[in-house]
């Protein structure tokens, strides 16, 4: 197991290095000069060159690349070209909001998907199954940019129960979490249904029925646990995506998360902030996927044995 963790850790480092290099190169290749945004057009060519020199943007790309990784190795993410503040505090300020929204969305998704998927699998081809899958289809078909305003109109404007957007008001997280969670729930419930249907056909389930075990026990102890592996992979992937910032949802609900920060930085060509945000997103993906792989071992002892 330790060897397995070591291998995963090493491959994670390679992935993060690859992503960081790619982002560095891409952002320096795309059109648009941060100095134009910083100084405006009124600046003289001499002032522009002076600032370019101060920010070390006049160095050869390879040297900038080396300096970026040297600083990164020392956990220095640089300074924002616009706010002239260190990037770390800006990122740290946004991470809790993103984490909060991610966890709340997952909670919503799991709370909806597991009952819906289980009912659909148990009552396959019945009215229950049809209804559950239709609800799931609707959930996956409505994009966030529509779902968000619809939820706001209903819950905030019509019923007056919740704030339209923001983070400080009471109950502010419910609507963004519902927006993100409902789309995820739709995908998850389909996965739970498909995975459960496969497991329910297994011999050991038939044996459990033959032994006279209750449906509840068969489902909770035997079926759901074994059906969890593909569902867990999906949750892991979605968790990584959500940690990267659900940009549209964050913008609709004025949620000051990482996605919002990333988009702003890209628009302004704020290189250090863009690089830091994307690095964070890739680290989240790698970390969550590594943890998911480890959880496989907990859920399925056969994987642990293979690991040995």
């Amino acid at each position, binding site marked *: 197991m330790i060897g397995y963790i070591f291998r995963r850790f090493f491959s994670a480092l390679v992935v993060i290095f690859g992503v960081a290099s790619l982002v560095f190169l891409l952002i320096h290749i*795309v*059109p*648009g*000069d941060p100095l*134009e*945004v*910083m*100084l*405006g*057009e*009124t*600046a*003289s*060519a001499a*002032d*522009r060159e*002076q*600032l370019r020199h*101060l920010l070390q943007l006049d160095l050869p790309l390879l040297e900038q690349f080396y300096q970026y990784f040297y600083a990164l190795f020392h956990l220095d993410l640089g300074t924002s070209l*616009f*706010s*002239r*503040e260190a990037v770390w505090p800006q990122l740290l*300020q946004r991470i809790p*909001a993103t984490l909060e929204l991610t966890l709340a969305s997952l909670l919503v998704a799991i709370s909806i998907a597991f009952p819906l998927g289980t009912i659909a699998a148990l009552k396959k081809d019945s009215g229950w199954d049809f209804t559950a899958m239709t609800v799931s289809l609707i959930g996956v078909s409505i994009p966030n940019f529509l779902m968000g*305003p619809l939820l*706001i*109109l209903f819950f*905030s*404007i019509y019923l*007056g*129960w*919740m*704030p*339209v*957007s*923001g*983070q*400080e*008001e*009471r*109950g502010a*997280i*419910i609507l963004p979490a519902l927006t993100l969670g409902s789309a995820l729930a739709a995908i998850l419930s389909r996965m739970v249904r498909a995975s459960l249907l496969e497991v329910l056909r297994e011999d050991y389930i038939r044996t459990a029925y033959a032994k006279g075990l209750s449906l509840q026990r068969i489902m909770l102890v035997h079926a759901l646990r074994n059906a969890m592996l593909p569902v867990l992979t999906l949750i892991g992937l979605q968790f990584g995506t959500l940690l990267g910032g659900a940009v549209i949802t964050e*913008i*609709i*609900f*004025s949620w*000051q998360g990482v996605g919002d920060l990333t988009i*702003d930085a*890209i*628009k*302004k*060509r704020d290189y250090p902030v863009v690089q830091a945000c994307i690095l964070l997103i890739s680290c989240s993906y790698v970390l969550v996927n590594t943890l998911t792989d480890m959880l496989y071992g907990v859920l399925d002892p056969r994987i642990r044995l293979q690991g040995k």
Partner: protein
Amino acid sequence: MSNCMGGKRRQIGILIAVIGLLILGNISCSQQPRKTIRFALSSKPVTLDPRFATDAESSRINRLLYTSLIDFDDNYLPVPQLATWKEITATHYRFRLKKHRRKFHHGKSVTAKDVQATYLSILDKQNASPHRNSIKIIDHITVLNAETIDFYLQQPDPLFVSNLVIGILPADLLAKQHPFNTHPVGNGIMQFLRWEKNRLQVQRLADQQIIEFISIKEPTIRVLKLLRGEIDLLQNNLPFEHIQYLSRQTNIHLEQKPGGNFSYLGFNLQDKVTANLKVRQAIAYAIDRKAIIHYVLGNSARLASSILPPEHWASNQHLTTYAYQPEKAKQLLQEAGYSTTKPLHIVYKTSSNPFRIRLASIIQWQLKKVGINVVLRSYDWGTFYSDIKAGKFQMFSLIWVGIKSPNIFKYVFHSQSIPPSGANRGRFIDKQSDALIDLAATQALSQQAVTYKTLQQRIQQLLPYVPLWYQDHVVVSQQNIQGYHLSIDGNYDGLQHIIRNN
């Protein structure tokens, strides 16, 4: 076993009940009355340090937190703000601070040394201030006493005073490298309280009223928050449909005032197609600007004929405008060598802003009617702006915001202002225009006005831009919010008198 299962069930039940209560507890069915006045912004201010602010939101909020030496009246003429001035010679200006002036918010008096320190800080190359270029004509600054300060210029510039609009910072904090960008200390009508996430709180000194700026990017969300009473007022950056909708709400107050932000179509004069004056004139005649203003902008704009609005002291109010004449446009196209068998194709670049794309689509449709095939290309702001500056375009549309000085003509139309040396993005080169711009730079204001009027006539004839319109300013607020008045340049000075009547 059954006891164990029952216990677990009870635990799960309790857990669900607790989560439910927490959620319900978080839901507020009714709004608590609040004293803070909330003002919605379309974007977050970038910096609260006036030495570095270039975006509209930062500049407007900084006006409340700091005071500059001069300001502008409704005709865009400079007027005293923190100081009065006297032109001793063409290269020597003396400023005297007003006797009754507010102290800085950290308690120190504003003195000439603070003015000197602020401007020296901007002039310092190491600080890389975007405003350095506008004042680098300053040769040196001398403090005569606590109230008097002299500016010496390298060469005469009759418009020099118009550039002294940057908020004054305290010299003691400048020396300590105080982070003004996040913790501003000025001597404006409002003092900074806190800035967390997308909320910025300032306090009015006169009565301790707290004003909270909340940045909300989506216009629909800003409107919904206003309707639900989560914010008290918002200004500009709303689509026409939203304004129309809000104007029908009985609990919402809406006010409009003419503005000076100039929308235009720009051409690349180095492109063989758009270099042809007849092509540019055909496009100008083919656009039905009145219809766009009426149907798309909801009459919340004025037709423009020049970069300067009519109320500007240097504007030419007698310019002949290009009225909608599709037949004349077709004739000009024929004269330019285009016909139905050889139609004109032109690429129109715009940003990815949905409203700009919508406008571009309407212009595309109007031009199609006279036989001009327009290919629309929209890009993210960085790419679009970069292409425009590099001259990689045939036609584009943009807006000039916050123009106050006629120096804009030099910056936009002088042959020496081709990027990166200025904003002559269309590569417009005309000796006569250059000569008029250079002449104006040597004249007194009254003479300059005459020269600039001639220049505007010349530019109108050569048509490097098609002037479109000046968009109005709009403020929408709750009915109980009173005392807010719109200004011609769209600043937030109206917050000085705003009150909530409960």
